[in-house]
């Protein structure tokens, strides 16, 4: 079986025809995952119940109730709850936690008969851009094991890139699906805020978090998105129109060139970006220079709002209801020792930062102000998207960096998110597409470009993405 070029459609067709069994497919991925996991460490756990899950998929195929996702092996980030399985968010505080219920995405995938391969490594509580903040060890980039896979969904991206999963799910609060997808040569989609239910996703920044697929093709990302999107009574922030709008035949591409003046962009990234714009032009896209004047504040806004939301969301980890517990002399000591030992350094740093920006004396100067600037950034995109259908930027300022290169300077690490954060701030959908290799670094490291579009306009991203990757012409 040619696993390298497998897609959801190809696998599904082979299974429906009887040329391939869900069990064999799942076990093929499991074998590769187990072989490569020693070096790459994409998975925190590879599940032992694959054959049982495959039986359910086989039953669906026999009954004729199979869908495109029946029997499709999928890796899920360790912050997505699957009943009866662990979900630790790569944190000591949840190391032995077992999910008492299914997340909405898990129950939807189960209804399709998809097969959960295992849970993937991540930055603790999704806080990081390199997967170095996992309490259970780093994940390595399959393209160069001295480099990071990106983060926080680094395990999910590495699992797909090493052929240890056909597709994967991650979560994206400030770029955590798109940035690792870019570093690992994958497609990564951050859908419109609220479009996929977050019921059963361990929360980080609730006004920003979104679940999204990491795949090898845009078509696979679209299939997963279509299966998972929709309003869910269990998540009061979820909403998606029942019918997707149709997409115009000819799309206009907006190019915010001024963003490239951000310091720290590698030559490879600039060159690849310009080539990608030319490529769209050669595909018949009309390009237009646009400006997004307030996006220069997006990262600062993000590092006010996100820690504020983190400090509130993570207050629930008190060593009383579930998770790790450290005993002290009294209840207060229980709290402070449980949280010191249970949380890693980046998590503690962000909780304290959030506590600071929400404190009485600084609330207006930080949290209040950041919310106003957020509305300006949102308006920038609304205005720009009146004249263009889709906006292009690099996904990241550089290709994958070395393990340890940025881990001692939190601010330096935060700058890795400068292009991805604005979509979360504005709530709009964005996709990262593989766009070539970094030539200055020996041609071995993948690069990505990001496309952004208006609320609920995922269809535009899928069309432009397929055009760019020539998916409709059988190249991929």
């Amino acid at each position, binding site marked *: 079986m040619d696993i390298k070029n497998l897609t959801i459609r190809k696998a599904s067709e082979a299974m429906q025809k009887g040329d391939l069994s869900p069990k064999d497919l799942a076990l093929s991925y499991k074998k590769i995952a187990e072989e490569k996991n020693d070096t790459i460490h994409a998975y925190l756990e590879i599940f032992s119940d694959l054959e049982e899950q495959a039986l359910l998929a086989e039953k669906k195929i026999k009954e004729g109730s199979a869908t495109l996702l029946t029997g499709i092996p999928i890796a899920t980030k360790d912050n997505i709850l699957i009943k009866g399985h662990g979900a630790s968010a790569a944190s000591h505080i949840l190391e032995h936690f077992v999910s008492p219920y299914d997340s909405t995405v898990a129950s939807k995938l189960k209804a399709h008969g998809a097969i959960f391969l295992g849970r993937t490594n991540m930055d603790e509580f999704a806080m990081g851009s390199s997967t170095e903040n996992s309490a259970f060890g780093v994940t390595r980039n399959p393209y160069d094991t001295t480099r990071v896979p990106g983060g926080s969904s680094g395990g999910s991206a590495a699992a797909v890139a090493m052929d240890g999963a056909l597709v994967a799910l991650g979560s994206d609060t400030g770029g955590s699906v798109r940035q690792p997808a870019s570093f690992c040569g994958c497609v990564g989609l951050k859908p419109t805020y609220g479009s996929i239910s977050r019921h059963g996703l361990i929360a980080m920044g609730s006004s920003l978090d979104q679940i999204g697929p990491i795949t090898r093709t845009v078509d696979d990302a679209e299939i997963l998105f279509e299966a998972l999107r929709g309003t869910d009574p269990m998540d009061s922030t979820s909403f998606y129109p029942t019918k997707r709008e149709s997409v115009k035949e000819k799309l206009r591409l907006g190019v915010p060139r001024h963003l490239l003046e951000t310091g720290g962009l590698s030559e490879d990234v600039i060159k690849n970006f310009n080539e990608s714009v030319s490529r769209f032009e050669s595909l018949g896209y009309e390009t237009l220079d646009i400006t997004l004047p307030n996006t220069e504040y997006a990262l600062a806004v993000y590092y006010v709002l996100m820690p504020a939301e983190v400090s509130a969301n993570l207050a629930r980890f008190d060593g009383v*209801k*579930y998770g790790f517990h450290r005993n002290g002399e009294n209840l207060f000591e229980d709290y402070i020792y449980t949280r010191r030992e249970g949380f890693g350094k980046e998590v503690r740093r962000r909780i*304290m*930062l959030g506590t600071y920006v929400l404190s009485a004396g600084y609330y207006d100067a*930080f949290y209040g102000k950041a919310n106003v*600037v957020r509305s300006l950034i949102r308006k920038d995109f609304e205005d720009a998207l009146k004249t263009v259908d889709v906006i292009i930027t690099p996904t990241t300022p550089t290709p994958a960096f070395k393990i340890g290169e940025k881990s001692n300077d939190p*601010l330096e690490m935060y700058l890795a998110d400068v292009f991805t954060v604005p979509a979360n701030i504005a709530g709009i959908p964005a996709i990262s597409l593989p766009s070539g290799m970094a030539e200055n670094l020996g041609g071995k490291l993948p690069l990505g470009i990001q496309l952004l579009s208006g609320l609920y306009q995922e269809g535009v991203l899928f069309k432009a993405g397929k055009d760019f990757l020539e998916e409709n012409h059988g190249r991929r």
Partner: protein
Amino acid sequence: MIEGKDIEKLALLARIAITPEERDTFLTEIDSILAYIAKVNKAPTAGALTQAGLVKNVLREDTHPHDSEIYTADILSQAPSREGNFVKVKKILS
């Protein structure tokens, strides 16, 4: 400018114990992050207002949510300390 005693206060408010060494590293790091995020005050916000999202009732009707006790055993099994069907906590009022 943030000081060492502010970090101690924040740690207390955040219910996280810290050592003097941790206080010093957090001070350096949080200070440089604060200097960066203070940039939000440079944005041209005169006249701009925060936007509220669509306002509608998202609460479920107050009817039968689910059968009683279907989650109890699974949830209680996660508690670090319990007594029968109760989560056990140290004395709150002294």
